[in-house]
């Protein structure tokens, strides 16, 4: 497979996952603003979310005031924001267009339709749109594409590259959402364990479409330790760090098997190493270490795996 094709498939996966993350972010923010709040008011929460997505400077420069409309515009529609839903869907579709020959017609169809629909939404007056419908729009379409990929794509190297993109991006997104919660959203220690704390964890779970799954898995009350366990170490949770990483390793193993000797496997080795390190921890160890420190380490390692994927496969050995 051409390196450029592999690269586009990888980024198609990443951008689709990123579009979904942006929509989830919008949803979390929206729910948090409905909370009876901490002293700084809802502006603070939105700012935390923007920081989590690494775009708060860009927002401040372009919009200044944090208002519901500005935030929606920025996170959903704004092409100047590289992580907005519209930017990500457009980039994913562009990647798909470049590698049309590597996609089944169902996948292309789903991808193309999601983009055409996006353009329809963009033409609607903003007053006709609410946050919930924007989130539903995004998760609906990304799920359709995902389903088409699962149902129709050949299980070949291209499939591995797409899923690598999905896996790495998903791990990164969950880690960042968790980081918002613990490090920024809750600046004051006395909130920990309060009703407010519980509600915020619930919001995070909802944003990851995981609050029902959580109850099935743990039952009973929502506690910080269990939610963190669910989203970091529980292999049954589809968006948990360990699950995403496990899938990443699985796809890298698939590539290594398919390509055989002679093609480097440094990305696989690194991913295995991080997975082993993750499996060696329990949630108490992570809290002792400091959740934020743990997440920063994890996000750095993900970046490294992504770089090694580029080195091993996407430069073409020239």
């Amino acid at each position: 497979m051409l390196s450029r094709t592999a690269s586009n498939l990888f980024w198609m996966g990443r951008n689709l996952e990123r579009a979904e993350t942006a929509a989830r972010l919008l949803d979390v923010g929206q729910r948090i603003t409905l909370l009876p709040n901490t002293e700084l008011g809802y502006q603070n929460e939105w700012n935390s979310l923007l920081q989590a997505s690494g775009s708060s400077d860009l927002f401040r420069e372009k919009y200044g005031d944090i208002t519901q409309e500005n935030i929606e515009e920025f996170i959903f529609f704004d092409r100047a924001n590289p992580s907005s839903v519209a930017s990500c869907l457009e980039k994913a579709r562009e990647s798909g267009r470049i590698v049309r020959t590597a996609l089944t017609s169902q996948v292309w169809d789903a991808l193309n339709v999601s983009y055409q629909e996006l353009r329809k939404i963009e033409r609607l007056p903003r007053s006709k749109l609410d946050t919930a419908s924007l989130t539903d729009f995004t998760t609906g379409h990304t799920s359709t594409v995902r389903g088409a990929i699962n149902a129709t794509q050949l299980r070949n190297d291209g499939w591995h590259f797409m899923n690598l993109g999905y896996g790495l991006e998903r791990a990164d997104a969950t880690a960042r959402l968790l980081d918002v919660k613990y490090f920024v959203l809750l600046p004051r220690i006395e909130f920990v364990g309060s009703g407010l704390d519980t509600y915020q964890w619930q919001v995070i779970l909802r944003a990851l479409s995981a609050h029902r799954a959580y109850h099935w898995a743990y039952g009973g009350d929502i506690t910080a330790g269990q939610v963190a366990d669910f989203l970091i170490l529980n292999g049954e949770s589809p968006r948990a760090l360990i699950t995403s990483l496990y899938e990443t390793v699985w796809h890298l193993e698939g590539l290594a098997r398919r390509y055989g000797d002679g093609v480097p496997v440094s990305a696989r080795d690194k991913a295995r190493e991080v997975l082993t390190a993750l499996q060696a921890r329990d949630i108490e160890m992570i809290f002792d270490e400091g959740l934020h420190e743990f997440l920063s380490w994890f996000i750095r390692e993900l970046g490294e795996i992504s770089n090694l994927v580029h080195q091993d496969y996407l430069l073409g050995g020239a």
Partner: protein
Amino acid sequence: MSYYNEMFEGDRVRDPYARLRDWVETMPDDFRQMKQAEAEALFRRIGITFAVYGEGGDPDRLIPFDMMPRVFEQAEWRRLERGIKQRARALNAFLRDVYGRGEIIRAGRIPARLVYQNEAYEKSVVGVVPPRGIYSHIIGIDLVRTAKDEFYVLEDNCRTPSGVSYMLENREIMMRMFPQLFRNNRIEPVDQYPDLLRRTLESVAPAKCSDRPTCVILTPGHYNSAYYEHSFLANLMGVELVEGQDLFVDGEFVYMRTTTGPKRVDVIYRRIDDPYLDPLCFRPDSMLGIPGLMDVYRSGGVSICSAPGAGVADDKAIYTFVPEMIRFYLGEEPILNNVQTWTLWKDDDYRYVMEHLPELVVKEVHGSGGYGMLVGPKSTTEEIETFRLKIQANPSNYIAQPTLALSTCPTFVEEGIAPRHVDLRPYCLCGDRIELVPGGLTRVALRDGSLVVNSSQGGGVKDTWVLSE
């Protein structure tokens, strides 16, 4: 001016259209509109769109599709096929000759200046004979019809003719929307084209290639207006679609960058123009090409289709000599007519053209896409006078032809069905064999009375049928 109608002769329906008459005439308006909308939705979903250079606006514009097919009967087609293949053989013989000994010039049949000083003449490949002596592997020949048995060649496209994906998709969509039509008519299939193309390309692999040849399509990238076609063909042929950045030269071969390391490439079907192929040989600022490609080509390490320099055969000035080529190289009489052409660098022709501008069509020698041309009978006095000044400034940049009475074919329009002018582009493949699928791209000028069928000028497309016996 009276025009040949492809479907009707007075009130009588011509034989090949006999079974279509009921279909057309009994189609309720609302059904037609529904089907037209369905066709448009299908095209958009598949992603067939057409970007027009320098127009701005929607980059995903659709090329209009007309549901009314254009039909040939077997006997008509056989004659066209012979004429097209004859022309394709002569054009390749000409290229072999002008990059070799130049017999046709020595014999005084074509002026040396028109060949050797032609912009498209590529000095860097003189003496390089590509595999099987084929320079142009895919030739698109633009034809118009003026009477039952009168076809004229408007121009030859020896470089990288586009549009074949429309031929294939138009058929696909017609079969999907109107299966009954295909049951009632015996229509020759066209969907073997991608396989024939792949076979053609494999048949011209370099002698240095010992395994099954690896072919690729080289595209300028996804911003190119024909990108859809490039990816469509690559997909149907099962070959990689590469950009310049995917290829590199190492030693005497060309390789592509793959996830498993470098892989050798034997045949490049390029959809980029000569000047962009290799920044070391042609334009140094080209970002699309592959440095060193031409050295590999000249030493027989890779085949390039069409061969660099093939464009010298489809120049509008060279065009006037194609009948002469057929006689000179093949010893045959041309089966298809050339349009009478006045070349403005000749004094007599210049004088004649300037006196008859309102009757003529004037084109730039190197122009294409329907840009920079004057259609005398369809222009205002003011437009004609403006164009006259342009010609006076640089006469040798123009040729003129009589305004041809392009045939019309019934076409669905706002008010129902009405005749619109059409042309035809079949695609001829040249490798170890010369082949032509029974069909082509029919372009239709959708504006009432317009004679310009180019999609950049508001033209549309139709499915083209050849009935089997």
